[in-house]
């Protein structure tokens, strides 16, 4: 198939085949090569570059990041935005997924919910600017119904970005949760119901333990989406202040200051913080529940 050392004799070929390497296995090579060239190499290069600052010693970029409040506060800003949104999305998604699972025409609802994901954050931000703006339909309806006495100031601040993450993030979280919830064998719930377990007990004793691994993964994937928010933090947020998230700091270092080593350092810190959250969530999951989970997957 490709450049394998097959011509050095049947002996080597047989040995390779015994380990699972033959022509078909080699089909994986172009793909692996592409991922190494376009992901692993740039990532390692960025890591190396982050230790080659424009001025100062090897760690100068990291020292700069953690000593400049304008830079290190971006971690806090990002987490204050992305963690509550992710948790709220998950808290909303679970009960709704449990309802929708019993629904006959799921597809209509899931199709509507797929819309904001496919349209993306830029379009949602663009729509929000007017819809939630002082003259938009949302503010008008709230005033007309007497719920609010003056137009809410949602966009250009924390809540603008929060809402934008909710609008694009909730459908994502929900659809993932739904795919886990529908994967649970319905007979398990029926058995529990037959034995007299109340809905609350059925949820706590049957569903929750089975769902936890899926929910942990859903949390991580949703968190990654919310965490790397860039366009909406700029368009519907307050990018100089309350929504100056870490990706804005990295982006500005790269494109406005042309300081690629610093930009790479910020990008690496960004990746590291995300990794810490993901590890904590997955770790907490295994603390909460240990035991077989795969058995119930239909």
């Amino acid at each position, binding site marked *: 198939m490709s450049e394998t050392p097959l011509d050095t004799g049947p002996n080597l070929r047989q040995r390779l085949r015994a*380990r*699972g390497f033959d022509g078909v296995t080699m089909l994986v090579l172009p793909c692996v090569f592409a991922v190494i060239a376009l992901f692993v190499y740039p990532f390692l290069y960025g890591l190396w570059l982050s230790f080659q600052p424009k001025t100062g010693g090897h760690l100068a970029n990291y020292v700069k990041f953690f000593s400049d409040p304008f830079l290190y506060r971006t971690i806090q800003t990002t987490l204050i935005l992305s963690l509550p949104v992710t948790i709220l999305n998950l808290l909303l998604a679970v009960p709704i997924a449990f309802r929708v699972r019993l629904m006959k025409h799921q597809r209509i609802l899931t199709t509507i919910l797929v819309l904001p994901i496919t349209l993306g954050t830029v379009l949602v931000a663009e729509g929000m600017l007017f819809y939630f703006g002082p003259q938009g*339909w949302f503010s008008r309806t709230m005033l007309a119904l007497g719920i609010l006495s003056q137009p809410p100031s949602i966009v250009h601040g924390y809540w603008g970005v929060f809402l934008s993450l909710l609008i694009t993030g909730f459908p994502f979280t929900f659809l993932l949760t739904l795919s886990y919830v529908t994967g649970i064998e319905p007979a398990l719930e029926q058995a529990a119901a037959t034995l007299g377990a109340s809905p609350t007990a059925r949820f706590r004793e049957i569903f929750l333990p089975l769902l936890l691994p899926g929910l942990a993964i859903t949390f991580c994937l949703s968190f990654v989406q919310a965490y790397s928010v860039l366009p909406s933090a700029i368009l519907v947020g307050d990018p100089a202040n309350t929504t100056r998230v870490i990706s804005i700091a990295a982006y500005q270092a790269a494109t406005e200051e042309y300081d690629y080593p610093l930009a790479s350092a910020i990008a690496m810190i960004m990746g590291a913080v995300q990794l810490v959250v993901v590890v904590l969530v997955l770790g907490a999951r295994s603390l909460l529940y240990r035991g077989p989970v795969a058995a119930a997957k239909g």
Partner: protein
Amino acid sequence: MRAVGGEKLSSRLWAFAVWTVVGFFILNLIGLIGSVLTSSFATRWLATWFPAGWTTKWYFSAWDEFQLGDVLWVTFEVVGAVVLISGLLGVPAAYALARREFVGKKFVVLLLLLPLLVPSVTYGIPLATVLYQFGVGGNLVGVILANLVPTVPFVVLVMIPFIEQIDPRIEAAARVFGAGTFSIFVHVLVPILMPGVLAALLLVLVRTIAMFELTFLVAGPGSQTLVVALYYAVFAAGVRAVQSIDAMAVIYMLTTLVWLIIALKFVNPTQIVARAKNNQNH
């Protein structure tokens, strides 16, 4: 379906609360998209529920102002190339991973998972730096290469379960009857794999049209895709009429939605976020 008759008041209230939240969400979503749509056809829309009059002139002015002809052509080239290349790289790799057990397979799978778990900005910034060093930053090739990073692993991970469910004895039978590798590929594998490949590539297509961060970090003036051009238009709002930007947003929505509707004919909506979990539906 569970019997509803025996449900208590508390669970009915609970159901009501759940549907209210869903309804509120969808209502606002429709309002949000409707605002953009209404505004793009509005002559003047200030301090009223609905615009003073209706016009289509913003579509023509947006087309000229934002050079949408060029932008759409760039988008088409980028998306086409990304779909083609990620299919060519991803499907064979998925076939190898589904059919063979080999030393280091877990490592390969982990390697493919990483680009989907690391935030795009984290690897996008070093990637942009590397692409500029190789002289492809800021042009079409760079944008295509950057977009391949999430799509190639995506195709592989969607295709692995699809290929695993195909009985390997079909290929074995073809070989027993004397078919060569090439004719097994053309007459057996291609027809069987086609639905799965089509679904995976349509998902790649929808995702690439909406892919903002990577294109944004790598694109130069002549290589912006529609979503990046829309971002710059919204970012520089005030320079141009709001309606003009909204008209552009509607054109963007239409390009995405056409493909989304086609994609939904072949895939389950949950597959757009989850990786081919509900494969039994197809």
